[in-house]
């Protein structure tokens, strides 16, 4: 699964431009799926029957999109103005290499040299409007042809394994969820499952609205990457969670108060099966769960996340060991849900 995650992380998937990720997942899923559809917003909905016929009882979801950049304008000198897509701390973007569009035109986020910055300004971060991408174009025309307004850009960089079992890559949020779901999809399942690979989570959990409405599940389990702040100097109550300590099972975040019984089920499964786990010890952020939960007459929401350091930066960091534990826990969850669910007649998806 590590190789799968690395492959997924290297694909482009800025919100609204999830094409590469969608195409890869579609191809991977095809041999194992009973049906696959793509909707008007680009969500990929994969249905796979299991040992027990439970229809649309369970939705498993991960989002395909990642934060990135969107080119807004070409300057007269051939530089590119841009805006961030999703929540990016612009301090981590300055001076970083980026790749523009499916052609992967290389560029760097430029800024004037420190010598040219007035002393009083050195402490403040340039505004996004002041930043630009330099693709080495000789003219506005050349730049406009290579990277017209409306093009996306992703952070450049390789996947690197380092230290004691850590992985550095872009877009671990949420290719980690995609990797777990794809792995699961290739196994025989104890019950019918709808796998949703959603779009546009980073710009407001947008894909989840239509997904929930069309699937109408009873339970939604969201596989995510979540902020870890276990860095040196951070007080314990603000560390949130830590990579390497197992899956994160949230009881609450900024968008959702998770279903209490499902939270108890998940934590109980960890205890009974020797899976290390942690919860979010700082309430912030939000996932597609918030949208699933409030869809139609309500959906029971649960979450399993990987703790990821430097989320939304070009260099996010996760623990490789957490990945397998997430898959194990998800597998156990499926069996537990299957066990307590009545068989229904096979219906259309």
């Amino acid at each position, binding site marked *: 699964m590590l190789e799968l995650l690395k492959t997924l992380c290297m694909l482009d998937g800025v919100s*609204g431009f999830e094409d590469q990720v969608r195409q890869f997942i579609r191809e991977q899923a095809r041999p194992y799926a009973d049906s696959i559809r793509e909707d008007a917003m680009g969500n990929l909905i994969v249905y796979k029957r299991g040992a027990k016929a439970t229809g649309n009882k369970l939705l498993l979801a991960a989002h395909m999109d990642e934060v990135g950049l969107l*080119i807004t304008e070409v300057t007269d000198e051939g530089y590119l103005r841009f805006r961030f897509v999703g929540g990016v701390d612009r301090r981590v973007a300055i001076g970083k290499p980026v790749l523009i569009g499916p052609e992967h035109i290389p560029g760097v986020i430029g800024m004037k040299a420190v010598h040219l910055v007035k002393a009083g300004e050195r402490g403040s971060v340039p505004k996004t409007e002041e930043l630009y991408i330099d693709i080495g174009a000789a003219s506005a025309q050349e730049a406009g042809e290579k990277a017209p307004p409306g093009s996306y850009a992703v952070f450049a960089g390789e996947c690197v394994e380092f230290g004691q079992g850590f992985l550095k890559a872009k877009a671990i949020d949420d290719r980690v969820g995609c990797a777990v779901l794809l792995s699961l999809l290739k196994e025989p399942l104890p019950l019918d499952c709808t796998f949703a690979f959603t*779009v546009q989570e980073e710009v407001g959990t947008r894909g989840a609205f239509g997904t929930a*409405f069309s699937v109408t599940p009873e339970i939604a389990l969201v596989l995510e990457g979540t902020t870890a702040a276990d860095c040196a100097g951070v007080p314990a109550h603000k560390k949130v969670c830590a990579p390497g300590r197992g899956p994160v099972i949230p009881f609450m975040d900024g968008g959702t108060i998770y279903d209490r019984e499902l939270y108890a089920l998940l934590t109980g499964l960890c205890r009974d099966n020797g899976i290390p786990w942690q919860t979010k010890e700082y309430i912030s952020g939000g996932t597609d769960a918030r949208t699933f939960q409030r869809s139609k007459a309500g959906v029971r929401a649960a979450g399993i996340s990987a703790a990821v350091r430097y989320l939304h930066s070009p260099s996010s960091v996760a623990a490789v060991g957490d990945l397998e534990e997430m898959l194990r826990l998800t597998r156990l969850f499926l069996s537990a849900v299957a066990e307590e669910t009545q068989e229904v007649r096979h219906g259309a998806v």
Partner: protein
Amino acid sequence: MDLFETLRALSALPGPSGTEEPVSRAVREMMAPLVDRVYTDRLGNAVGEKNCGRPGAPRLLLDAHLDEIGFVVTGVEEGFLRIQTIGGVDARVLPGREMTILTNPPLFGVVAALPPHLQTAEEMEKTIPLDQLRIDIGMDQQAAAAAVPVGTRAVYRAECFRLGKDQVCGKALDDRACITALLRTLELLRDRELDVDLTVLCSTFEETGGAGAATGAFGARPDLCVAVDVTHGRTPDGPKSGTFPLGGGPAIGVGPNMARWMSQRMEEKAKAAKLPYGLEVLPGDTGTNAWVLQISREGVATGLLSLPLKYMHTPVEVVQLSDLEALAQLLADFITGLGKEAPLCWSC
């Protein structure tokens, strides 16, 4: 159809969010000869339907909003009216402003402004915050309290007039200019063969979050949507980036809120008809009904066309008629043949 006269008639009507009925009624009347059926719904949307007669044709919804920003009276103090805003009012333009208080019959009022000689130089450098502004309706406490109950709405009192050769100035051109453009689009479509079932949603509550678009779309169940709204026209004091010169045609929205194929189709049609246009790149929330329409029900392929407008949310908003006409032409071309050519999913 005379664009200026239509726009002037619509601009004159009062319709702050939540009390759009006068505008809704007028729009239903204007729309009636151009569509098969008009109706209103629980939240007061003015809806027109025009069917192509093809069974199973895709359903296209066009949206522009009826409502305008405005004011609500929260109390009477020594005969002067305390107010709060409805939608994003620019408080800088209020002092000395003429207002229409929407009682029956309406009352005239003016926003009280202390004369300069009673204020310090320092005070005169600052915008007066809204909670310090009052409307003078020329009545004493007793008369005012009897005439104007708490909750009464008010709007700017402003004429709609021509500015220069082709520009128009008035209140509520956001978004009555786009309503006018939709009426013009329907007129252009009258002589063309349709292959989609068309719903024209003139929606309520846009300035306060888009409730009319959300409920209207839920009822209409569209497969495809285009929101038509205003965007910032370029002015000498504003940024060049993200603003659009008047006369430069409509702006085509690009970004995650818009289905990519729709943005591309709009651009192709504009090029083919040699219509002026701009590209408006929006990385997230577009601040328009497109944001609401896209997530209706199962999700809807959505596009956004915007009309450049100067001095947004003031009583002297300015648009250019040639942009209105270009927007209508572009939209009509976009719609023509859409039913056969529209892909069924985002990337198909």
